[in-house]
């Protein structure tokens, strides 16, 4: 897979940044506006998959190596569990929203509000984005193997 034409490449470089920023916005404002960790994570993965389709698999590995993607996947999952365990430590119940109830009430409709909900959104966003990118990358590599075998 060598990628597509120059037009597609140029446009995808610009559009990729906008898609990435939009994904970050969807994740960060998940507790105020529609959206959240899952949808934002899928959008983040989509920006890298767009690069992969336009430039080929080798190019996207330079900006997001497979090892880094799988580490991000684990970091997201561990962060989510860690937030849940912090609730157990500070308030005595697994997954309780300890930040909102005890330490940082925040004002409703502000970016810093709702305690652990934005943190959980970020964790889920990282996790979903990295894992969806991984699965599409691995599957597209597998496709090349299948089509090569057919030619033999």
């Amino acid at each position, binding site marked *: 897979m060598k990628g597509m034409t120059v037009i597609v490449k140029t446009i995808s470089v610009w559009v990729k940044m906008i898609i990435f920023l939009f994904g970050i916005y969807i994740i960060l404002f998940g*507790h105020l506006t529609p959206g959240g960790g899952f949808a934002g994570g899928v959008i983040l993965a989509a920006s890298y998959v767009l690069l992969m389709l336009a430039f080929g698999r080798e190019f996207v590995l330079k900006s997001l190596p497979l090892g880094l993607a799988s580490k991000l996947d684990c970091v997201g999952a561990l962060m989510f569990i860690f937030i849940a365990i912090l609730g157990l430590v500070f308030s005595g119940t697994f997954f309780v929203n300890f930040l909102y109830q005890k330490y940082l009430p925040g004002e409703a409709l502000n970016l810093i509000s*709702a305690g652990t909900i934005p943190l959980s959104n970020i964790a889920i966003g990282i996790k979903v984005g990295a894992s969806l990118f*991984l699965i*599409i990358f691995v599957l597209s590599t597998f496709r090349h193997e299948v089509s090569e075998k057919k030619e033999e």
Partner: protein
Amino acid sequence: MTIFYVLLVFVLIAAVIAIETKNLLSSVICIGAVGFGASLLFLFLRAPDIAITQIVVEILGLIILIRATIARDLTFIGGDREFFGMVVSVVVIIAISLVGVVVLTTLPVVFGDPVFAEVPNAASQTYLSEGLRDTGAANIVAAVILDYRAYDTLGEATVLFTSIIGATVILRKKTKKLLEEPDL
């Protein structure tokens, strides 16, 4: 109200084309159209969260995934349909439509209006009235999935994590071998 029926007819036509067409690419695009129509429906039903998720998953999970994974020479679907299967599917479609009409006519509210507005003591009333005070999140959907029902989200994340592990393990050796070779 009319917009729901227009969108429903659009979704149904796209779904039928997606099944009947012989070209894989146009079939996939028709399924994308089904997802797009469904996400517009959710938007008009005042559920923007599920609309965003629907459109994102439908576009990335379906069109891009299939575009990235299906080889280019496998774009045609073969095979003829049996008469018996056709009869069974027509009967099933008619039965489902009849059930749908019955459900629509017996709804306590007009289709498109939230049920909790009419039904007294609906469970969602509690979330709507107490959600902001309990969690501080203005988006009640986020409050439900990350505070009231955070265990569900944990289970979902675990399922996703496990499936990713499974897929990467199954495709691992081939991936490693291919990465050492020059690109096509």
